[in-house]
């Protein structure tokens, strides 16, 4: 028999009592089951549930107390939401939802528990082994990550003139955080691995690149941080700075399993036209995972960006192909220091795209764009196709003429994307497109373009109270323009800024409609 691994998270109260009673009766628990005794099912977050699968579990059962009998009141309710969301995400990854189940028992429901255990084991055996390969922490070899000295030399960080322009322009420092790019460079030069700068601050950096634009020595600080993170990660793990319990990093790592068959496109609306034989590929990105993860909290709808992009391509008579088994592009792994798994994802994606004979890849996500167009190549993965951002495609098509826009009813303002602003070819496009829609209904925020303020967090790393303060400041700027629609170009900006709007202490002061530019165009464009 194959070696199945089934994890049982057992609540300390009702469920564990039933489990003990079962053992007292002399019941032999199936050998594939390992139990973890927990204080309350409501504390097993999505990150922990998913982590079990990432580490090689074939099935996970969260066994708790019947609703209403929870020792802490709301534990079971939280568990229901966590389990539902994680089940949806498993489905996107091509795993059967029922590999994860939430069941509840009263202390005396011994037979019920026994029946469940038997049934669950049978069910998992019928699904077969999970296609997720446990990702071992293969630490990057030291020679690959380089040394402090090599990284410093590669980015010319020894050229630091100690002028402090980086710190005085850094959005984090301006928000009040004790954070200084210059001090980080200094600490790396001093080589002290245990300094606060290296242990903590490198994970707070937003990698937005404003300091790079200001630096008189031209030190590419975001890339420098990216390398330093990889080096630190190769020695120690640095995972404690990840946001959302490391769920997204875990999700991305799990996608490096070669056997995995993702199922992320099957829920597209029927009217979207795709063509398997097209030489143009639409690369979606992680939006479906984000929307599922945040659905009970923010009502985030970033998948709309993908659907609207596809519809706009259809509008201009392009029916693209999609990558059936698309993985994450790896952006957030690269920027949280996990270079090895980033490269695995890169190679998997590129091999699949090459097999389809694709000549051009269109994407609507600035992070996917940067990663595909620049970072794959930078880390030695050859890309044999042209990468186009959907805005480039739209600008080119709209410029041919004969299309016009129904002016939107809203007054707009625009949140810049840091990844898009790092490309000269892209940075002016969103405003060009907005001007085509309606120049009179657009107002800039105080900080915009090259000195735009970040949405507060990057690569699911280092989110803290200062991130929140920055988001609140940004939303205030947006409200000051008198606009009632914030146009974004990155799904992360949308998620992070909407998160800050939920603040109960601010009431409705920060509330504002947020919509991606692609969706704005989709709603307003028409033939002349």
């Amino acid at each position: 028999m194959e070696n199945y691994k089934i994890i049982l998270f057992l609540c300390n109260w009702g469920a564990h009592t039933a489990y003990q009673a079962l053992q007292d009766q002399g019941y032999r628990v199936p050998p594939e089951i390992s139990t973890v005794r927990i204080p309350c099912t409501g504390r097993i977050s999505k990150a922990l549930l998913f982590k079990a699968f990432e580490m090689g579990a074939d099935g996970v059962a969260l066994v708790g107390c019947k609703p209403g009998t929870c020792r802490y009141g709301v534990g079971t309710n939280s568990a229901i939401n966590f389990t539902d969301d994680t089940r949806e995400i498993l489905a996107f990854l091509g795993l059967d939802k029922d590999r994860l189940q939430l069941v509840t028992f009263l202390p005396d429901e011994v037979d019920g528990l026994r029946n469940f255990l038997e049934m669950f084991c049978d069910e998992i055996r019928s699904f077969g082994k999970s296609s997720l390969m446990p990702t071992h922490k293969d630490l990057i070899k030291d020679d690959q990550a380089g040394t402090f000295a090599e990284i410093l030399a590669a980015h010319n960080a020894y050229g630091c003139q100690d002028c402090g322009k980086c710190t005085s322009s850094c959005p984090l420092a301006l928000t009040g955080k004790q954070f200084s790019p210059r001090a980080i460079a200094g600490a790396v030069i001093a080589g002290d691995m245990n300094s606060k700068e290296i242990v903590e601050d490198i994970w707070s950096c937003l990698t937005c690149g404003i300091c790079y634009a200001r630096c008189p020595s031209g030190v590419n600080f975001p890339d420098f941080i990216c390398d330093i993170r990889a080096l630190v990660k190769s020695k120690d793990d640095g995972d404690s700075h990840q946001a959302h319990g490391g769920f997204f990093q875990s999700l991305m790592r799990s996608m490096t399993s070669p056997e995995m068959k993702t199922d992320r496109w099957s829920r597209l609306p029927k009217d979207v036209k795709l063509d398997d034989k097209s030489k143009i590929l639409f690369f979606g990105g992680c939006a479906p995972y984000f929307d599922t993860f945040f659905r009970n909290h923010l009502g985030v709808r970033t998948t709309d960006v993908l659907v609207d992009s596809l519809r706009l391509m259809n509008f201009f008579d392009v029916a693209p192909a999609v990558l059936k088994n698309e993985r994450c592009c790896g952006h957030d792994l690269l920027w949280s220091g996990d270079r090895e798994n980033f490269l695995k994802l890169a190679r998997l994606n590129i091999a699949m795209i090459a097999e389809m004979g694709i000549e051009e890849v269109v994407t609507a996500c600035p992070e996917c764009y940067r990663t595909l167009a620049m970072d794959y190549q930078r880390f030695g993965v050859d890309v044999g196709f042209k990468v186009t951002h959907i805005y480039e495609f739209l600008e080119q098509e709209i410029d041919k003429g004969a299309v016009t826009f129904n002016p939107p009813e809203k007054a707009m303002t625009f949140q810049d994307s840091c990844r898009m602003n790092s490309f000269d070819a892209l940075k002016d496009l969103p405003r060009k497109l907005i001007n085509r829609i309606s120049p009179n209904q657009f107002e800039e925020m105080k900080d915009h373009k090259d000195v735009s303020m970040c949405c507060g967090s990057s690569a699911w790393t280092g989110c803290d109270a200062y991130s929140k303060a920055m988001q609140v400041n940004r939303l205030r700027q947006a409200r000051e323009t008198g606009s009632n629609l914030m146009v974004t170009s990155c799904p992360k900006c949308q998620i992070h800024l909407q998160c800050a709007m939920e603040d109960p202490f601010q009431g409705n002061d920060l509330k504002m409609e947020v919509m991606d530019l692609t969706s704005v165009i989709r709603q307003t464009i028409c033939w002349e």
Partner: protein
Amino acid sequence: MTNTNEKNRQEIIVTGFGGQGIILAGRILGQAAALGDSKESTLVQSYGPESRGGACAAQVIISEDIIQYPYIKTPDLLVCMSQSAYDKYIDELKPDGILLTDQDLVKPAEDRDCFSIPATRMAEELGRKMMANIIMIGFTTAVAGVISVDAAKEAVTSSVPRGTEKMNLQAFTKGYEYGLSKLKGRAKKASGQTGVMA
């Protein structure tokens, strides 16, 4: 006067202000038809006060058969690049003839169906206002289909000053794509699709 029995005969009047390159545009159309598409073509350009800055016109006939008489009374295709030229020639256009205009320079009667392109504005964006005529040729090629694209490109390249070929071809392509897009937009609208499906 003209023999309308001649097969596949297209009579074109290109008109605008003197200095817009109207005559050159007419010449390129005729040249493309004659040299590129191996058809017959004639060109008559208006002399006189027009060439001093007033309304200016080129009369082009493109035909599969020999053309007996080069003057045009009622064109099939009217390309207007100024309001005064439009006013002067519009009544002569055949009822089912095609009207092409520069969107910013000509305001046609409201009930008049026409294909318009901001050719002069586009030329300015490309860096040279004087290329408006080449954009118009591209637009005409796409919309009216009287000459083939390859022939038109060849004629443009051989007619413009040396060193500006690439720029002019870019202008031609711009006008041509605008024309194609216009036709596509009309087809989509006719089929009932105006915006992106929700």
